[in-house]
């Protein structure tokens, strides 16, 4: 009996509480009610469209014109045709791939090695946020420090000489690969922690029973890592590499501050090429065309990596 009374009471009480809410809903028109969720997200969408889609579309539009400040002359695909034959553009593309590819590989290897040694440690788990420090510094400030170390202040050169590794001074801007190395070192220093954090998190989130099973099956830590951990976290690696890859393809700050493309344009990245075309020679249409080409290449490459990593990770 007591149970029946209780439910009866609850059934009576419920509509009382629901009624005022129902009233406010009923006052809205059906159209408004359907539009309501969209209205809620509208400000964010408008903001995002305004700062990403509009400039992007504008760049595509501009790439079909020869722009002389206020004068826009439609030229069709001329800008793209010219790009295809521009040795400087292709050199910049090659530089970007070389510098970015090497930097990304080195970052991945170092980050994965550190993660492998560190992820079982409780201390790392607690303090992994500390490893984000280099990422928190302003990129331009970091670039100036490297400029001081490599070029203006000759800190690195002096250190190497004191260690007896070189004689005389090393001019980091006087040699193609030394100049590229400075860019690689700067990027590796700043961004390895990012990959390290992601890899540590991925390794720590593995099923611990699986690791223990592998140990009992006679696998050493490196064997477990190679045979089980690495294949299992492959999708995470792919996403991290894509994020970092996109970032590295647009490398600009370090180039602008450290090398300005010297020697002889051999450290000029695509971003710096676009900057030079747009803001030094004021060839906006041409710069836009280069930007569009880079965008397309980046999207295709990212798509390919993610797709492959996820497909082979499944079934």
């Amino acid at each position, binding site marked *: 009996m007591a149970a029946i009374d209780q439910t009866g009471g609850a059934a009576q009480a419920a509509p009382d509480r629901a009624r005022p809410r129902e009233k406010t809903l009923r006052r809205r028109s059906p159209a408004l009610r359907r539009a309501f969720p969209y209205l809620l997200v509208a400000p964010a969408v408008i903001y995002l469209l305004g700062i990403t889609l509009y400039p992007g579309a504008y760049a595509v539009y501009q790439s079909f014109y020869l722009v002389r400040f206020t004068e826009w002359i439609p030229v069709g695909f001329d800008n793209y045709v010219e790009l295809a034959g521009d040795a400087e553009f292709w050199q910049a593309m090659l530089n970007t791939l070389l510098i970015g590819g090497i930097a990304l590989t080195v970052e991945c290897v170092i980050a994965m090695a550190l993660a492998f040694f560190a992820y079982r440690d409780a201390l790392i788990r607690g303090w992994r946020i500390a490893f984000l420090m280099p990422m928190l510094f302003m990129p331009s400030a970091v670039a100036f420090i490297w400029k001081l170390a490599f070029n203006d202040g000759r800190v690195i050169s002096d250190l190497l000489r004191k260690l007896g590794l070189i004689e005389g001074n090393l001019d980091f801007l006087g040699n193609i690969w030394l100049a590229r190395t400075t860019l690689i070192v700067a990027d590796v220093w700043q961004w390895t922690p990012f990959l390290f954090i992601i890899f540590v998190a991925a390794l720590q989130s593995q*099923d611990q*029973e699986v690791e*223990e099973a592998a140990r009992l099956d*006679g696998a050493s830590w490196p064997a477990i890592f190679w045979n*089980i951990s690495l294949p299992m976290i492959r999708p995470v690696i792919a996403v991290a590499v894509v994020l970092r890859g996109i970032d590295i393809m647009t490398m600009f700050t370090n180039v602008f501050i450290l090398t300005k493309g010297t020697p002889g344009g051999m450290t000029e990245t695509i971003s710096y090429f676009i900057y030079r075309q747009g803001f030094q020679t004021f060839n906006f249409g041409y710069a836009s065309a280069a930007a569009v080409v880079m965008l397309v290449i980046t999207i295709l490459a990212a798509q390919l990596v993610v797709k492959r990593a996820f497909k082979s990770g499944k*079934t």
Partner: protein
Amino acid sequence: MARIELKDVVKRYGGFTGVRRMDLDIADEEFLVLLGPSGCGKTTTMRMIAGLEVPSEGEVVIGGEVVNEVDARDRDVAMVFQGYALYPNMSIYENIRFPLRMRGIPKADQDRLIRRAAEMVELGDFLDRKPGALSGGQRQRAALARAVVRQPQVFLMDEPLSNLDAKLRSSMRVQIKHLQRQLKITTVYVTHDQIEAMTLADRIVIMEKGAIRQIGTPDEIYSDPADTFVAGFIGAPPMNLVEGLAENGRFAAPGLVVACPGGVSGRVTLGVRPEDCHVVGEGLAALEGRVYGVEPTGETTYLTLRTGETLFEVKAARDARFNLGDLVRIGFDPDRLCYFDTETGARLRVQPYRSVA
């Protein structure tokens, strides 16, 4: 193929003691079950044998060798985990091959061993699949195959059946026991399910709060419990425990009077299994109570009687039917009564016990 000894083993986690002073001798080829409620230290004990935990004190000896300092991978111990712990990126074939590969078994022998192990657990048709494409029971058998493939010295199983449904569990139980008898591998099996323990074990170790309460064959554990914890833990429904007073060869509690051995006196607890109770006529009754519940199960009928403050379970005939509130008289099988010290819970051994065997 190996005897396992635990000598004064203690495991502490900071201030918490997981396993306290454990002494255990597991014979070669024995099937030993560690049984107890959650958090009693049974899994920790097994993990110390596996080498996944290091004992804080004491020695773990496998095959005559102290293995405290030996890494898990060098102990030649195979383990089946509760969550199966198959390698999700490898096919079942590769999963079973992994321990062979890691131990450098020649390639020529690998295929034969894998197929034999897969046959043993009837998994031959699924070797190409990934673990994700198998059912729970198939995964469990894959985990078993991976464990048996390299003929380890010791077999450890950590609640391997707890993720399976009831029907599958009973068929896997038979399979595991058959496998163990066939391979003659010393096996330690952890469970909180007493049916698994009773059916599988050569000997059962009952643990509570990190300590061993009783070690014995399933028969001993069931019929001759060492204390009230074991008596109340084993059996479904468990042993009835009634607190009362014993003096001059008579045990009395509200609604219950029974003759007891002369050596028993003071505040004691009487233990009697539901199946050692019989519905009797007036005059023969040791206990009178009113029916509180009737549960027919088909093969038998469980009666719950209320006597004084306590509820008393009786296993009655399959056609026994009573109404709630009926007065029922119960007689006991006098040889099967157990007496415990109410204060400590320990068994009072005053009468020669009649063995079931």
